[in-house]
């Protein structure tokens, strides 16, 4: 009998920041396993360590002690170049403030990960166009961020996160800068991505948003306080998102 290994596995991960003479213990031994295709919301008050956990899962930072296995590979000892490669190939990021390059068209923003993956111009263009179509922006590929609404900008950011076919999409407060209606629309996109098999991990402090995830991990004082599974609420796709995930 074979069991599928978890996609993400953290074992007794700690993280200590040295702030002058003071040591700040951001994570005090976190063990967490996330299977492929799960949707997980990480919650917690500010200072609970959820952002640090996110940075470590996202290969932006390395744990002080403990092990982190990403797709079965130990990544806690990798150097900056190797971590960059992991971020490029396996992970996709969505940020609260979108973090799109200004004065740069939507399609060029979406092409960015492929640029560092070494894809050719035509392939980059085609894949970016497909990703933008998938988030319902197929008709706005040459728009610049300042010509788009917050919801549209966040969808461009999601297209950028999924263009390189990552295994995991990490979203840090993805609805924090959006009104509640737009926020639900964005959550609908995440649910559709999850349905297509992509693992989604999002950090949020809003319980309303966490309800759309199938699993909620609550952090407190650098430790996992609770880890519950739930029946996720289905998010209503925006009427304009008919093209997303091929749904009617």
């Amino acid at each position: 009998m074979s069991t599928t290994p978890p996609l993400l596995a953290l074992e007794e991960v700690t993280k200590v920041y040295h702030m002058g003479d003071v040591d700040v213990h951001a994570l005090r031994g976190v063990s967490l396993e996330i299977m492929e295709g799960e949707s997980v919301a990480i919650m917690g008050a500010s200072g609970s360590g959820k952002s640090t956990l996110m940075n470590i899962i996202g290969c932006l930072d390395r744990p002080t002690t403990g092990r982190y296995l990403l797709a079965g590979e130990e990544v806690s000892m990798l150097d900056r170049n190797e971590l960059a490669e992991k971020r490029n190939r396996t992970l996709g990021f969505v940020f609260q403030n979108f973090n799109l390059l200004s004065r740069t068209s939507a399609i060029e923003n979406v092409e960015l990960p492929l640029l560092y993956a070494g894809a050719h111009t035509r392939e980059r263009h085609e894949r970016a166009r497909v990703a933008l179509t998938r988030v319902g922006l197929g008709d706005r590929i040459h728009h610049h961020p300042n010509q788009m609404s917050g919801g549209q900008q966040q969808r461009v950011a999601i297209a950028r996160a999924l263009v390189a076919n990552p295994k995991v999409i990490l979203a840090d407060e993805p609805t924090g800068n959006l009104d509640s209606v737009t926020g639900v629309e964005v959550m609908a996109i995440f649910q559709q991505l999850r349905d297509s098999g992509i693992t989604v991990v999002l950090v949020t402090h809003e319980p309303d948003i966490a309800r759309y995830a199938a699993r909620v991990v609550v952090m407190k004082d650098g430790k996992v306080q609770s880890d519950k599974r739930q029946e996720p609420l289905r998010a209503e796709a925006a009427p304009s998102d008919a093209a997303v995930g091929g749904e009617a």
Partner: protein
Amino acid sequence: MNPLQTLRVAIRALLRNKMRSFLTTLGIIIGVSAVIAMVAIGEGAKAQVEAQFASMGSNLLIVLPGSTTSGGMRGGFGSMPTLTWDDLRAIRTEVPTVKYAAAQLSSVAQLASEDQNWSTRVYGTTPEYFSIRDWPTAVGSPMSDSDAEGGTKVVFLGQTVVDNLFGANANPVGQVVRVKNVPFEVKGVLAEKGQSSWGQDYDDVAFIPLKAFQTKIQGGLQQFISGQIYVGAISEPATARAQKQVTALLRDRHHIGPGQDDDFSIRNLTELANAQEASLNTITNLLAAVAAVALLVGGIGIMNIMLVSVTERTREIGVRMAVGAKPRNILAQFLVEALTLATAGGFLGIVLGLTGGRVLAARLHWPMLMRADIIVISVVFSALVGVIFGLYPARKASLLDPIEALRFE
């Protein structure tokens, strides 16, 4: 990421801030154009000096008679005739490094054609003189040996004299010109030589064969040469040796003991030309050095803007890192941006330097000489400036921590 993609990303980033990119480049543009224009002006001046000395004659030595001293008053060189015709013959035959030697007697005289007259300097000399001074005849025939020795009454005119006596474009060959009221037949017109650097018109002259000059203009044959001896050495490097040998010969002939002053002097025009060229070289180098400082300041301008740019685009760097840019991708991007700015500045500087130099040359009547090697050096140097001054900001960008860069406000 291949270099071409990096270049494209860099150019796109620069075009996002066109005005700033242009202003940053301006320092390099000014620096490079200044270097090119300054060197072109310096080289042009050098070429002009060379041409002037070449028009005086090549490998030329001029022997002047000594000075007189009477009652404590010392006259200048040539105030006392000390050179004899035998001295001239000895220089010609006894010094191995001497190819030609010719006397040049001179007098200011009024020349008259049928309907015009003109005062000019009239020289008496032999055919060798024209070889020493590389001075061919443009119209008519050159002075011959029989002219010089037979005392034929023929005259050879410079172009300025022809213009004034016969009008421009006239052919005076065969016509009669009266020199101090003595009729001479025009046998040839000399090729134009232009002006000397001090504005003397080389073409405002007339030449008469030596014997005729002595009898008709000077008034009788004399033992001493009341003029100068022009000496042409066999080659340029031999000129200095010829000077020493002629000096030794004349000291011996004039019985001048060791420690006593020469009763003649020798001017070495090659030496003079070299000295003037050397001083021009110094000035050119100085100008180029000042211009190079401008280029350096331009480089510092690039570094300054690149540092500002790195700070301003911290979040962009964070995003690029988050989506998979390696530190060396970021380093390459900013380095290529600086390099592109500097090289573009270099090329624009060449265009500005060449056109600006040409305009300046035309306006101020300065000669210009563009040197291809300086153009190549300027571009290479400006690219080097870009790399050197771009390296620090680029390195700073590549060392940013992605988490902090993303959090940067």
